[in-house]
């Protein structure tokens, strides 16, 4: 039975929270997570307040801020890809494989051709989107045609992507200068996306493709809330049975949602590829797809919420670098991130229950006010 108001639906943000309450849950979660982390710090013999001050001090230097924004840009794209599936009840666990394969093939194509600047960039991005979309589309087709759970198929496709990527890399690889690393042929300068000096006083620049992440966020909002496609997608996520009765072709929607989610996933590696490494090598960042799942949950699959989540994650990751110097294990940050996700689950549930009863009270109050008066009047 498709009861829309299920725990998963609330968890995945298909059930909305309004007004201040939508802020209350994540704030509550982060406070709770902070408390638990503090306990862990105390237990491991570190002063919690000092450690936090240390992280904030380090994390608020211009150089760190730039690093935070750069990390957040990548996380944001990854979380948006996950969120799109989540809004339709699809768990795209395969963002990880999708973006790695997309970045690899896009890097190889980018290194092999030479085109005028903007066209070159566009080509690389289009290739990445196409590869990500195609890879995710396999899972979509399997689900629509054969009923294969997308959770299983995307996890398997991740593994296949790892193997396929390793093999492709050996086919296309050139040695990276000055190391025994191998990577794709470097992308010529025409396709480098210049950084932006966003943070005053910072020696480093933020990724130029930050703008791409912003566009994806705006596009996500428009697609979901302002288009028929988005309506059908949300309707299917909320109640598949109602969507079918309303004429939505659910199988088609499954394939399209996976394809779009994979397309966004294809963008995840782009800021790094076109703004910093210019080549896909063995040390290209991995695991961003899983970070995206956590951030999508934290941001309730909402473009603005996810942006905050991505920045928070970026801050935690960046500022954890300082902890080693002060003999605090940086794994404490991993603990904190894990605890945040758990707290988010709990806090959203609490706030949701409060909101449902508050809404019902409000409706019955507003409806009963005139009726009440009538009865009272009739009774006289």
């Amino acid at each position: 039975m498709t009861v829309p108001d299920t725990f998963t639906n609330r968890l995945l943000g298909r059930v909305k929270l309004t007004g201040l309450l939508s802020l209350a849950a994540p704030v509550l979660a982060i406070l709770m997570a902070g408390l638990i982390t503090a306990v862990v710090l105390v237990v491991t013999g570190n002063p919690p307040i000092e450690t936090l001050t240390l992280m904030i001090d380090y994390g608020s230097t211009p150089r760190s801020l730039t690093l935070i924004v750069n990390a957040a840009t990548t996380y944001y794209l990854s979380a948006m890809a996950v969120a799109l599936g989540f809004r339709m009840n699809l768990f795209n666990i395969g963002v990880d494989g999708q973006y790695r394969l997309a970045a690899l093939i896009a890097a190889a194509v980018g290194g092999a051709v030479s085109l005028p600047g903007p066209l070159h960039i566009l080509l690389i991005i289009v290739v990445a989107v196409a590869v990500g979309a195609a890879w995710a589309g396999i899972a979509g087709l399997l689900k629509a045609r054969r009923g294969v759970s997308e959770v299983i198929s995307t996890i398997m496709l991740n593994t296949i992507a790892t193997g396929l990527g390793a093999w492709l890399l050996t086919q296309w690889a050139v040695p990276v200068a000055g190391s025994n690393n191998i990577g794709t042929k470097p992308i010529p300068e025409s396709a480098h996306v210049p950084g932006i000096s966003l943070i005053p006083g910072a020696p480093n620049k933020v990724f130029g493709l930050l703008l791409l992440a912003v566009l994806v966020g705006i596009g996500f909002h428009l697609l979901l809330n302002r288009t028929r496609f988005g309506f059908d997608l949300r309707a299917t996520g909320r109640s598949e049975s109602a969507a079918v009765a309303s004429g939505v072709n659910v199988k088609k929607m499954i394939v399209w949602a996976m394809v779009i989610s994979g397309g966004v996933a294809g963008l995840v590696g782009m800021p790094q590829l076109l703004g910093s490494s210019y080549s896909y090598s063995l040390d290209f960042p991995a695991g961003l797809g899983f970070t995206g799942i956590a951030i999508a949950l934290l941001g309730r699959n909402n473009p603005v919420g996810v942006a905050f989540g991505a920045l928070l994650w970026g801050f935690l990751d960046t500022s954890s670098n300082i902890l080693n110097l002060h003999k605090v294990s940086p794994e404490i940050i991993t603990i904190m991130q894990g605890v945040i996700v758990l707290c988010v689950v709990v806090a959203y549930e609490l706030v949701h229950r409060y909101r449902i009863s508050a809404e019902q009270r409000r409706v019955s109050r507003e409806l009963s006010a005139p009726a009440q008066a009538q009865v009272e009047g009739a009774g006289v």
Partner: protein
Amino acid sequence: MGPRPCPNRGHSSREAEISTQTAVALEGITKRFPGVVANRDIHLSVTKGHIHAIVGENGAGKSTLMKILYGMQRPDEGEIRVDGSPVSFHTPADAIAAGIGMVHQHFMLADNLTVLENVVLGSEPRKALVALDLGAARKKIKQISDAYGLGVDPDVLVEDIGVGQRQRVEILKVLYRGARILILDEPTAVLVPHEVDELFDNLHGLVREGITIIFISHHLDEVLKVADAITVIRRGTTVASVDPATVTARQLAELMVGSELPSPETRESTVTDEVALEVKGLCMPAETGGRPLLDDISLTIHRGEVLGVAGVEGNGQAELVEAIMGIRASTGTVILGGKDITDWTTLRRREAGVGYIPEDRQRHGLLLEAPLWENRILGHQTQAPNTKGIWIDRKGARADTRRIVEQYDVRTPGIDVDAAALSGGNQQKLIVGREMSGDPVLLIAAHPTRGVDVGAQAAIWDHLREARAAGLAVLLISADLDELIGLSDTLKVLLRGRIVADVDPANVTPQQLGSAMTGAGEAA
């Protein structure tokens, strides 16, 4: 005489003197939730060994009252007396200890356990502190079953028994825990007519043995048939206590809504000779093989005609509706306004002017966690005023939702509240308003007034009649025989996936129709 007003405080204190006969008495019960009074000054006196019915519209406060009586809510004011002595319940366990048991509308049984295991679940008899004493439990169950004539076999799996029997298991479960006062919440909602009769026999058996039954329902005919006393609740308070022998269903309904009641009758024919829908040789094989779900169904609906389909549930009504909507695959021909739509998708059929009021509004007709104006778009995603090209027209959709709310009297504080916050009747009015929008040529209405209160029911009938007069063709599926006979111009009876009889609604009684539905009239 007809209804007499509910006794006020003065009278009820006199009644309290004869407390030896009173099983349960509620005095001035008031329950406030923040901002709203759910129950106000409730007076109820249930005589021992009676079947006491409590009737009222949806949202009148019946369930709150029962929750108070069963210890799930505590009243803010007032007193509950059981067998004459005041009680205060904190949890249902207190109520059970006082001999009050509740049989919920939705059964709470584990399918893969036996009747015996289900009955003892949660209060298992122990032998030597650890071992389960199932032997003693089996004996006790047999004893209870025989004493009250329930006919329950303790050793069959629950998944193997029918709905009526499951209900008896639920009743037995409560009796097993020592209840002497049973609360039955809408017990007939899940039963087919002959099961209802069996239930009533069981209930009479129970009261003969001294059990008291509080029976909540809004099926007035059933209430009149089975109850020894009736209390009517309206807007959170008891408005009348009536004697079923001296009151008609109509008077009772008027007490419930507090106003004169319309009827479903539509006699002046508006049927034209223009065919709106033609279905020819519709078949749907069963997925598991065996008897087809639909077997060679053919029917024609003209503009301005209501074609009613009668039948015991599960005889192909749902399949017929879904086949015509293009939701489930079928063979045969469907022609809408002269166009063959057999191969069309659901969306295209909707765009061609087929409105659809689904049987299960919460699963198929609404997005419960979406605001009303988004629910206005559902099923009309491609049509004005909801969309412009690929874009959702928020302004248009919102304005049109306001129109529906106003025209169809949807009681809501606004169009931004979630559909889940509305009562069932108001949800249904929203769906009816939505499906009537955009000048449909055909409306498929499956149980359009099921589970809605009398007021909403009358409003929905009015809208159906108006649309019919304006030339709408309606396929009406209903389990409410009065509704079918009253609204339909033509009636067909569906049995085991086949149309077995054509009935003229102008001269058929619900009894005749009922026997046709079970196949008794097949030979005739």
